[in-house]
């Protein structure tokens, strides 16, 4: 038996060439072809139905009408039929075109030859010669003064657009280290802006708090992003704090920044039974009894604690500002 492609016998694993073309029904049977044509036509017509449905939904269906659809529940009919109409209109154009190609357009496989990507040698030599000659004409190599000064000019001109970006924003300065909490600032509820007496808060309770703003000053989201505080009350004997931190609490009430020390989300989930605060973003867990020490999750620092006491009217106030920056870490943060 031969083992080369010569002669009539091919090697067992050699390329047998393109397989024989198999005709489709529509190729040989004119009735099948007519049927295929009708099917394509119907598909195009279904698209038209879709467009008509869309137009009807747009002008004819009341925007407040709701219909019950299984799985979806009560759905807005205007929105639903607008969408279904559009979907039908588009989808069936596609189906028609594809069905037409599959059944009626010729499906003989065609062969095209590839060229090697690499250019012919003479073209490459031609290119190299051209570049060499024309670089010599530009003369950069013989004119180092031009080369250096060109480099200098082009390099420096980039400074202009960079400098123009300076006014994108102010310099942070000491901003990240400061909040609106100062000694004597009253704690007020959020929502409501009501000052808080210790008796307002029950053991096991939690309250979101903001610093009291004078009537002429408006509270912005920027302020909320750094001032938000959680006030939590537990039984005083449950605290496990050093004397200094204990002195920052008041009769079992302790205040922490609500802004997560990890990436700044609001640490809103308080578990009364375990006295744990959970941040929903990355599941950092803080132990309230131990000054919000991190017991699980990626946060590397406890939540900053705000020292609190009561003023001479009995309302809770800050004793001093935070002793560290609130929120996520940054390069210049003096973290202890």
């Amino acid at each position: 038996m031969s083992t080369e492609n010569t002669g009539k016998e091919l090697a067992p694993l050699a390329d047998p060439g393109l397989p024989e073309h198999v005709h489709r029904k529509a190729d040989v049977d004119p009735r099948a072809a007519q049927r295929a044509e009708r099917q394509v036509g119907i598909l195009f017509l279904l698209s038209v139905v879709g467009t008509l449905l869309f137009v009807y939904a747009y002008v004819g269906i009341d925007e407040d009408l709701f219909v019950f659809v299984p799985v979806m529940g009560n759905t807005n009919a205007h929105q639903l039929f607008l969408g279904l109409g559009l979907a039908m209109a588009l989808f069936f154009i596609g189906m028609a075109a594809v069905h037409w190609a599959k059944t009626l357009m010729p499906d003989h496989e065609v062969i095209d030859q590839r060229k090697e990507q690499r250019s012919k040698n003479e073209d490459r030599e031609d290119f190299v010669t051209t570049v060499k000659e024309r670089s010599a004409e530009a003369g950069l190599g013989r004119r180092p003064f031009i080369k250096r000064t060109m480099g200098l000019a082009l390099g420096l001109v980039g400074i202009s657009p960079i400098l123009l970006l300076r006014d994108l924003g102010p310099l942070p300065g000491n901003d990240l280290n400061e909040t609106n909490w100062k000694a004597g600032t009253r704690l007020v509820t959020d929502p409501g802006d009501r000052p808080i007496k210790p008796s307002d808060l029950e053991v096991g309770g939690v309250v979101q708090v903001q610093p009291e703003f004078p009537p002429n000053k408006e509270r912005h989201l920027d302020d909320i992003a750094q001032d938000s505080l959680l006030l939590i009350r537990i039984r005083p004997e449950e605290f496990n704090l050093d004397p200094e931190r204990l002195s920052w609490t008041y009769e079992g009430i302790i205040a922490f920044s609500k802004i997560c020390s990890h990436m700044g989300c609001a640490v809103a989930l308080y578990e009364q039974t375990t006295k744990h605060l959970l941040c929903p973003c990355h599941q950092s867990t803080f132990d309230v009894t131990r000054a919000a020490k991190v017991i699980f999750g990626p946060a590397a620092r406890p939540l900053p604690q705000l020292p609190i006491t009561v003023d001479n009217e009995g309302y809770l106030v800050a004793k001093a500002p935070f002793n560290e920056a609130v929120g996520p870490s940054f390069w210049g943060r003096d973290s202890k």
Partner: protein
Amino acid sequence: MSARERVAGQVANYVDERTGSAKWLKKTLTKVFPDHWSFMLGEIVLYSFIILLLSGTFLTFWFDPSMREVEYEGSYEPLSGLKMSAAYASTLHISFDVRGGLLMRQIHHWAALIFMAAMVAHLMRVFFTGAFRKPREFNWIIGVGLLTLGIVEGFLGYSLPDDLLSGTGIRIAEAIIQAIPVVGSYLSYFIFGGAFPGEMFIQRIYTVHILLLPGIFLALITAHLMLVWYQKHTQYPGPGRTEKNVVGYPLMPVYMAKAGGFFFIVFGVTAFLGAVASINPVWIYGPYNPGQIGAGSQPDWYMGWLDGLVRMAPPIETHAFGYTISWNILIPGLIIPGIIFTGMALYPFIESWMSGDKREHHILDRPRNAPNRTALGAMSITFMLVTLINGGNDLLATHFDLSINQIMWFSRIGVIVLPPLVFVITKRICLSLQRADRELVLHGRETGRLVMLPHGEFIEVHEPLTREKLFTLTQHEQPAAIEPVASDENGVRNPKGAKAKLQARLSRAHSEQVAKPSSKEMLEIEDHH
């Protein structure tokens, strides 16, 4: 000549006299494209992109990217009178007071999700079939670039409505920026125009989302398609297909009809999703307030792996000399993604270094015939899946009655242990499949029919494969490992010594194969019968 033909002729003449395009057009209309469903994944991406452009343009006619505070006066009752940003209010306006507005918002967002999903599926197809090999390395790099930009574009897009869910995501992004050593807080203040959240952010990302990134996309996609066009599409092994040809159907009429039709189909399916499935119902989330949040906050799926990485990071920071470096943010948020995307982009070069293969390839690999590559791919997918699952750990906990703490520990350990395990298993499976193919070629297909021979022996009838199938199963090449030598015959040490040894080791692992049957072996078997 009919009237129609006459007019067509006049138009063609008009254009040709000004552009000389007859020859080029003819060549274009007869260009051949191979036909396989897995080649259409890239088309889904392209068509989704067009859908995004169209639906997105519609939305820009009503969206107001301003963060100035307004009081809501639209038709959605529960939020009536509430203070919110103009961006959020205009999103509500589009959803409830513009006919078709909610539909277009939903089509836009579904198209974005499908855009990214199809991109990943397309990337996996290209990877597992080795389509990134020479001469297509540039196109692979462009593709990785498109993937990275797509993730950013999607993130910025769903943050435009300034709602509570996406605003939380922006807060996290700001924390990553702020954590960058030395320049972090400056970058953050410049990007946000001051302290977070500031009043500039939405309008700035709007410019990036509708102008800068789409412009870059258009340029990259054009380059991507031009390369495919010029280099011609790859094809699967099979009878009649060689490294020097491309077998398929011509652009006109078949491909125009199929590909053009598929565009309408993709658009139709996306519109269908926009009609029946609610997505990003920002009216339930409420406007962004940095003091508020909801449990189970997640980013869109293509960012889930990043969130998962951040969640499982050990709580490590360095505090020294009044400075802080947050490794717990920088490593999962910047360093690991940087390594992943760089590694992905460089993979064609890494593989050709390992295999020593510097030839052009236009016939695709069946994944089982490249066991090392397939195993590496499965390993990477495992990594992505574990991090993605961890990104949704709180949702998994509530829906499957699990503990977030346990899921996180599973992910922390799993992300290190599972990928190498999957690598080994996948490679073994590929080699087993090669063995099975070898048996199939040498002995034919087992039919399950038992026959008793005259002398009493039972045999199972094996049906020999067709020539086409035999060729398809053995067409692939099995290059040997490269063996850089430590020193040549004169005792001169190889200057690339250690690197060459590493290359040899990797090359041996990379080229591990089950030897495919040869014609000689086939003939020997035939002689036996």
